[in-house]
């Protein structure tokens, strides 16, 4: 059997088996689940090479599955996040109800994502896209909280995206008579102008919904925070990247080929920039860690869209690199929140505090991924941010670079809020019972967060597949003049060499660590967080010194005008308006036979009265 088919058969079979394996003992079920995630992905990694194809005929449509270097790059993202999240999920989800349902949906999502990456024709692309949407929707409503509000919102936006995409696919089929993506790309330059605009816009609505592009992002905070955290790390880490995947294809393979495409991409880039700023500001305001990370995901996807939208080689590289890094660190951070939720029962910064000494390994993972998120060298996030800034400057986007800078400086605020809210601050008696999570939950987090460190020092490890992916999209080879294994260059030839920098940082840190520790750490005694300087008074045990409510108040006093308008309100207003309209129609269609008879009579009378003017 073809390996490509084998992969999907295992996924599908595993999903069905885990769903119906309710009778199996817990451990067997977990092994079955892990095997269904690991075996096909392992098969993919070892057996599949770019160029393998599989063709079938289905209901008159020729379907083609193959892997290109570009989709291989995104498959790497899926593999790294999905495997770690699966290991995490096994331990994190132990003891919850409907476990089979969770496992099956988890596997289906991964299968759908791999399917999207394999699809070379629009039919299977759309089918897998819908499987992905459905399985993620079922995960959003998995816990049954706020289904009306959150689930429906996600569902409606996904439906809008799917219909837009379906319309585009139908138009493409009508124009070219083929469902192949390659045919579309080849035929696109010859389309008339209206179609050249319409097709990308429709497709981008579909992809924009999944990648939470403003103003299509409103579903994201709710959906990300309502799905189980083990799944959200895939949801935000990998699933949102499918939107980016499609977006890159549309922007590079289609839009570049018509003359006004430049402006089109400019608009997309600015939308990404605004998404980044507003996502960041709303993230700072959240008191719930899940919501904070959800808005932060929106903002980070904004950066990626900026890079992809600008589309110079350096910008595209930065977008794809950030996509990879975002998968790693946001995957980790959602796992951290999942861990804290499991160990303490809450994810609210105003409730839980001072966990650093109780959960040191979780803290380490959170710290590394937060540093990567903030884009501080020497971790991976910095490489992406650096390339983004440099590409914006060398492509003369003067004000967009300021917008991005503002957003990523403001991101420090929520980064600190996240770390301080959970791990630092006053240690309270209430949380004394909290213990470090089991190893199966900690190890995936540590693996992912250390990966950001490795890729920060040796960005070439990721830039190599990115380079190959970009070559299939039609870019020139960038190795050597834009990047080397641990050096990155901008378009003007300036460089950042990571290796000497990392050695210097480690040397300085070790020197002062020894200086501070020598005759100090052992000889000093640890004192509690109540034993602090407070103007000569000694705080009593019961006195509450926790600082977590209105954490960034002074900042919000300054940025208030920016946050008055909320796109969500407009959508709600629109929904209310529609509801009023439907209410009005309901009054006409009363369901009463006599009323309908009356309508007929009135209609006939009007006809008779106006007979002369109509037919005369």
């Amino acid at each position, binding site marked *: 059997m073809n390996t490509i088919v084998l992969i999907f058969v295992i996924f599908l079979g595993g999903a069905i088996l885990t769903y119906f394996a309710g009778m199996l003992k817990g451990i067997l079920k977990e092994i079955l689940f892990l095997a269904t995630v690991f075996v096909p992905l392992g098969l993919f990694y070892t057996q599949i090479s770019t160029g393998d194809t599989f063709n079938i005929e289905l209901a008159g449509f020729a379907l083609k599955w193959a892997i290109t270097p570009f989709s291989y790059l995104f498959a790497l993202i899926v593999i790294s996040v999905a495997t770690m999240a699966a290991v995490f999920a096994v331990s994190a989800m132990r003891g919850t109800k409907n476990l089979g349902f969770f496992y099956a949906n988890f596997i289906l999502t991964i299968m759908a994502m791999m399917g999207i990456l394999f699809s070379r024709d629009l039919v299977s692309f759309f089918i897998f896209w819908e499987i992905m949407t459905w399985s993620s929707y079922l995960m959003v409503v998995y816990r049954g909280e706020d289904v009306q509000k959150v689930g429906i919102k996600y569902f409606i936006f996904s439906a809008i995206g799917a219909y837009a995409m379906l319309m585009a696919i139908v138009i493409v089929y009508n124009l070219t008579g083929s469902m192949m993506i390659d045919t579309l790309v080849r035929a696109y330059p010859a389309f008339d102008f209206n179609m050249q605009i319409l097709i990308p816009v429709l497709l981008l609505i579909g992809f924009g919904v999944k990648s939470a592009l403003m103003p299509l992002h409103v579903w994201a905070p709710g959906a990300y925070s309502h799905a189980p955290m083990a799944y959200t790390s895939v949801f935000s880490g990998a699933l949102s990247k499918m939107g980016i995947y499609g977006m890159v294809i549309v922007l590079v393979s289609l839009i570049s080929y018509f003359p006004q495409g430049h402006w089109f991409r400019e608009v997309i880039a600015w939308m990404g920039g605004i998404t980044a700023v507003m996502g960041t500001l709303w993230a700072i305001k959240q008191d719930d860690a899940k919501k904070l990370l959800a808005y932060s995901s929106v903002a980070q996807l904004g950066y990626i869209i900026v890079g992809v939208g600008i589309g110079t080689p350096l910008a595209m590289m930065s977008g794809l690199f950030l996509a990879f890094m975002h998968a790693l660190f946001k995957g980790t951070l959602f796992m951290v929140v999942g861990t804290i939720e499991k160990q303490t029962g809450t994810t609210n910064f105003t409730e839980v505090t001072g966990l*650093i*000494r109780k959960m040191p390994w979780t803290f380490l993972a959170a*710290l590394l991924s937060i540093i990567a998120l*903030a*884009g*501080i*060298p020497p971790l991976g996030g*910095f490489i992406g941010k*650096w390339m983004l800034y440099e590409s914006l*400057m060398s492509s*003369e986007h003067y*004000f967009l*670079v*300021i917008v991005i*800078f503002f957003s990523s*400086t403001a991101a*420090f*605020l929520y980064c*600190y809020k996240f770390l*301080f809210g959970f791990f*630092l*601050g006053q*240690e309270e008696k209430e949380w004394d019972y909290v213990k470090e999570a089991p190893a199966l939950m900690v190890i995936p987090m540590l693996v992912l967060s250390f990966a950001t460190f490795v890729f920060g020092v040796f960005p070439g490890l990721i830039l190599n597949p990115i380079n190959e992916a970009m070559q299939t999209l039609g870019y020139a080879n960038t190795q050597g003049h834009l990047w080397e294994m641990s050096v990155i260059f*901008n378009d*003007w030839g*300036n460089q*950042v*060499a990571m290796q000497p*920098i990392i050695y*210097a*940082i480690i040397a*300085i*840190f070790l020197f*002062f*660590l020894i200086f*501070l*520790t020598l005759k*100090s*750490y052992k000889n*000093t*005694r*640890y*004192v*509690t*967080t*109540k*034993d*602090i*300087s*407070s*103007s000569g008074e000694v705080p009593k045990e019961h006195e509450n*010194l*926790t*600082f977590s409510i209105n*954490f*960034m108040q*002074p*900042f919000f*006093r*300054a940025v208030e005008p920016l946050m008055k308008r909320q796109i969500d309100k407009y959508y709600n207003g629109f929904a209310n308006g529609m509801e009023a309209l439907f209410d009005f129609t309901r009054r006409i269609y009363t369901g009463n036979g006599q009323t309908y008879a009356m309508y007929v009579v009135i209609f006939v009378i009007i006809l008779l009265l106006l007979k002369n003017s109509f037919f005369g």
Partner: protein
Amino acid sequence: MDSIWYKILGAIVTVVMAFIVGLTYMGLSRKITARVQNRKGPPFYQNFIDALKLASKTSAIHHGFLHHVGPAFMMITSIMSVMIVPILTGDQWFSNLNFKGDLIFLLYIMVFGPLGMALGAGQTGNPNSAIGVTRGLSQMVGFEIPWVMALVALMMQYHTTSIVDLINVQHQSGTWLMFSSPFAFIAAVLAMLGMFRYSPFDIVGAPTELASGPVSENGGKYLFTLMSSNSIFAFAKLTLYVDLFLGGASNIPVLLLKTFAIYLIPMLYGIVSPRYRTEQAIRYFWGWPLFFGILAILHATVF
């Protein structure tokens, strides 16, 4: 000069010089402040005495590992900045890591330390520390905008992000960027007021209000490390301004003269100003400094 040992020796010389100059400047600022306020003030070497005293003290308590390593994080930023910023143009001894990083890298490494230090301050559990940190981060968002606008204007105008290249531009044209890009200079200087955290922007430490904020739980060696890190960092920032706008310096006396001239701006502005509230500070930076930043970018794009 290619041996690794020469490089390490050069780095040590740079750091020691930065430490001495930074502490002296701080001492001088105390003296000048006192004279303006009609006091006698401490001698200019008072800070060296303080540093020596702190270094020789032993600490009795600590608040956990992160608090313990917080000052070391701070040191990374200070020393890395001083390594990246070209101290003397064309001097082998001081060319530490000048070509290994650029302005954007410098901007980002400059927040590494304060954030690490903020984490250490967070672990102490002192609410004043955390309040100071949130204020500091908010203020940073404020002044970073005009500051980055000024830098972006320079980088766009001269098509380089390397500090060394920007110095070379000034050498070739014979005019300082202060005169050829005046709006960028104004925006950068206004942003500097926030960066140096003198009054009216001393909302982070906020004496008599927050009990010195993030530093409040540190003593002995911790405070010594923080203090020396601050002085090195101050020197690095001053040298950066000199490199970017005043044409760099080819020998040490010129460097000292130029850096001290720059240093006087935030200091003298601070002596006569009362403290802002946090949101006032942020809005200050989004007023005139932002306006000059926009002018700088327009200037860079038009010419």
